């Protein structure tokens, strides 16, 4: 069947393997022009591979992708762009050191009679484009990599919009955006669809699908479960299609701090680059939640608590005041951080599971300077069993595992330390429902054993379910602390936007504090 010229995007029997893992198997479906088409699935379902093939970054082993009849798969990003496919990626692939203007115009810079790129003209064009798309908080001559995450993402989005695209692909593009910016993005998407273009929204967030998509294709384990008209399928049906079963009812199970032991982690007036004056306590057996939109200082807070950023203030672990200037020291003090990006911050994908997991405990596994292989294998096998990961993980490279299993490897790595305090930074990001449940179980278990847990997440449901109290970060400070019955969906959402319960507040929702250039050197400790 030859690809139809009328279909905006047509996937035909697309298959792709990475080593032993089949990322995509015989994926076939089409997207019509003038629609916003969602592609949903859990992580490991193959969404990002699909996007990479569509954008020309990866070649499929089998099958092809056509855009209005023109083949874009198996070639290069240049061909995809030429066909009118503009992609906003999840991993922000910006070129460092470039200004916003040069980033927006990369590949199609203006040139004067001497073939030189005139900075002023470039800036002007960029400023006009930004204004035309309703972005008013970014200067054209700012260096993109010095901008806060959300603004960088907006620049990426505007760059894609400037193509102008016949097919706009948004690959988890909202992960860095606040609610206002998400609304802005979806308005743009709607606009493109209404004008006859096509928008592909790749996400695992069902509320986004509900908000903006006309049709939705559901992927599971690399295969297409089905393509539906969005209005004709309920959320529960979508979830069932995504995971193959219904999810368990979510009951809030809050943990209460043990009064008989000193607080696992106590922080007073902690300040660092991006946050100031933070004060809170995590009791033994308590799960303290942290909520905040992107860029409100929570990432810096977590890094500082782990010793990876310079900070000032008072920290005590298990009642003893400590000062640490490196993650090494923090770990010795009994704090572990489970970072947000398992692929680039948590695991070395090219090493086998064994070497990844034993990394923090190498010192204890060594005798006379040599690592005891048998003890290593034994310890790690126990951990893997506890987390329900196959023991083949000992020898297989971390890259050969699904996202969920990789996350479990990451947990195993830090559980080996038997620390007293665990910092979780967005652990369920891009993770399938099964692993999410495992994560919640693990957190409860840790709390049950008397550890202290500081838990940051962007999924409000998790906060409601696991955490008490919830610290809301806004503009670098803990703006509100919600306890017990105060922890409701509505209250948390309002707090995220800087609004108090009565709706008062500066309400500059979605706006980021003005940025100063990122500084290297001094604040990076360790």
């Amino acid at each position: 069947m030859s690809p139809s010229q009328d279909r905006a995007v047509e996937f035909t029997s697309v298959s792709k393997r990475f080593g032993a893992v089949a990322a995509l198997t015989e994926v076939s479906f089409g997207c019509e022009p003038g629609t916003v088409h969602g592609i949903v699935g859990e992580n490991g379902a193959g969404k990002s591979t699909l996007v990479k093939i569509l954008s020309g970054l990866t070649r499929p082993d089998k099958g092809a992708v056509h855009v209005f009849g023109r083949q874009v798969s198996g070639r290069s990003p240049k061909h995809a762009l030429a066909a009118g496919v503009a992609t906003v990626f999840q991993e922000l692939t910006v070129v460092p050191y470039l200004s916003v203007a040069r980033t927006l115009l990369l590949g199609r810079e203006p040139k004067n009679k001497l073939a030189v790129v005139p900075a002023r003209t470039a800036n002007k064009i960029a400023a006009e484009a930004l204004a035309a798309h309703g972005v008013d908080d970014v200067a054209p001559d700012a260096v993109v990599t010095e901008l806060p995450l959300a603004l960088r993402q907006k620049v990426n989005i505007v760059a894609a919009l400037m193509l102008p695209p016949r097919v706009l692909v948004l690959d988890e593009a909202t992960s860095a955006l606040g609610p206002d910016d998400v609304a802005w993005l979806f308005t743009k998407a709607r606009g493109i669809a209404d004008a006859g273009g096509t928008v592909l929204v790749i996400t695992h967030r069902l509320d986004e699908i509900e908000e903006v998509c006309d049709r939705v294709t559901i992927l599971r384990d690399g295969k297409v479960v089905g393509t539906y008209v969005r209005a004709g399928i309920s959320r529960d049906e979508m979830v069932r299609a995504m995971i193959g079963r219904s999810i368990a009812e979510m009951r809030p199970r809050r943990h209460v701090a043990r009064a008989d032991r000193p607080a696992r982690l106590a922080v007073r007036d902690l300040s660092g680059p991006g946050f100031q004056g933070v004060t809170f306590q995590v009791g033994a057996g308590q799960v303290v939640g942290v909520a905040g939109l992107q860029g409100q200082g929570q990432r810096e807070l977590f890094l500082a608590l782990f010793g990876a950023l310079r900070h000032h203030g008072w920290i005590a672990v298990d009642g003893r005041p400590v000062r640490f200037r490196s993650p090494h020291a923090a770990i010795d003090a009994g704090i572990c951080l489970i970072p947000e990006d398992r692929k680039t911050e948590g695991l070395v994908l090219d090493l086998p599971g064994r070497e990844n997991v034993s990394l923090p405990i190498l010192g204890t596994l060594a005798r006379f300077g040599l690592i005891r292989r048998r003890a290593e294998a034994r310890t790690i096998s126990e951990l893997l069993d506890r987390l329900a990961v196959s023991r083949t993980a000992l020898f297989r490279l971390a890259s050969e595992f699904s996202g969920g299993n990789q996350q479990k490897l990451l947990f195993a790595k830090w559980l080996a330390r038997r620390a007293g305090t665990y910092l979780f930074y967005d652990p369920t990001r891009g993770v399938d429902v099964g692993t999410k449940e495992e994560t919640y179980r693990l957190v409860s278990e840790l709390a049950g054993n008397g550890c202290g847990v500081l838990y940051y997440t962007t999924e409000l449901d998790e906060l409601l379910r696991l955490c008490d109290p919830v610290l809301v970060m806004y503009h670098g400070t803990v703006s509100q602390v919600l306890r017990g019955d105060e922890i409701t969906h509505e209250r948390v959402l309002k707090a995220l936007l800087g609004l108090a319960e009565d709706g008062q507040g500066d309400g500059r929702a979605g706006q980021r504090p003005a940025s100063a250039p990122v500084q290297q050197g001094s604040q990076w400790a360790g």
Partner: protein
Amino acid sequence: MTAADLVTTVRNVRAGHRTLLQILPIYVAVIILLMAGEAIRGGFVSLGNVGSLLLLATFTAVVSFGQGLVILVGGFDLSVAWTMTMAGVFLTSQAQGLNARGAWVVPLVLAAGAAIGLVNGLGVAIFDIAPIVMTLATNVVVQGLVMTSISGTPSGKAPPFLVALTNRSWGWLPWLVVFLACFTVLATLFLRATPVGRRLHVIGYNRTVAQLSGIPVRRTLILAYVLSGVCAAIAGMLAAGYTTTSALTTGDSYLLPSIAAVVIGGASILGGRGHYPATVGGAIFLTVLSAILAAVNLSDAVRTMITGVVILLAVLVIGQRERSH
């Protein structure tokens, strides 16, 4: 290691397969070269000749360990050149052919090598200076210091025990080859079976993960450069022991081979990957190659050109290549 540990090691064979596959190719290449050598000049593959080839390869192999460590963590060490020369020159001029003096000169030279490495490490880890520039600067500074102190003329003799170590043999087996074997075992153990070795690999693969895993990255980086300096010093002293006197051009002639041996042996120039036995194979390969080229009656010029082409071929076939775009 207990017997049970050995059993676990055997059980790791599946992972060992991967390692073997990465070490084998270079040795296959060496064997091919040896056969070619035999074809060109009968008697090439005699025990005596192979023994002396392995002996000659030792110097490169030792320097390449240090260079390999630095490449493992994502850098280069251009200062091995004059560190080696420094080692030889100071050894001979201070030891003056006496074992008694050699006893304290050798540790001093090792310390000097470590100091040079320390300076490199500090520049790279603390000041974030590009390794190639930092080690280039150090190399040149050491050159200046050494030349000034000996006024341009190396003198003296290496202590007899070093001369013996590098020149004597048990029949066809030179003592130095036994040294090489021991060194290889120790070096491989260091890289594969110690916590420090593991940490070096992780730093090479992904520095962020290394830091967030609690690895003291700066300290470990500096260690890599210090060890490189020490290895260069060892190699320099051995080379001086071999020829009894020292020369000013020693180090320069080992710099590029040290890098080539590491890359041909299959290490990734981006860091993280690498097996020392393969690097040793690379050193042997280069030594055998130049021996063959010397046996054939070709001019210096042609020999140099052929070396270049062979290196290219070796990398194409065996070495790690960059990701494609």
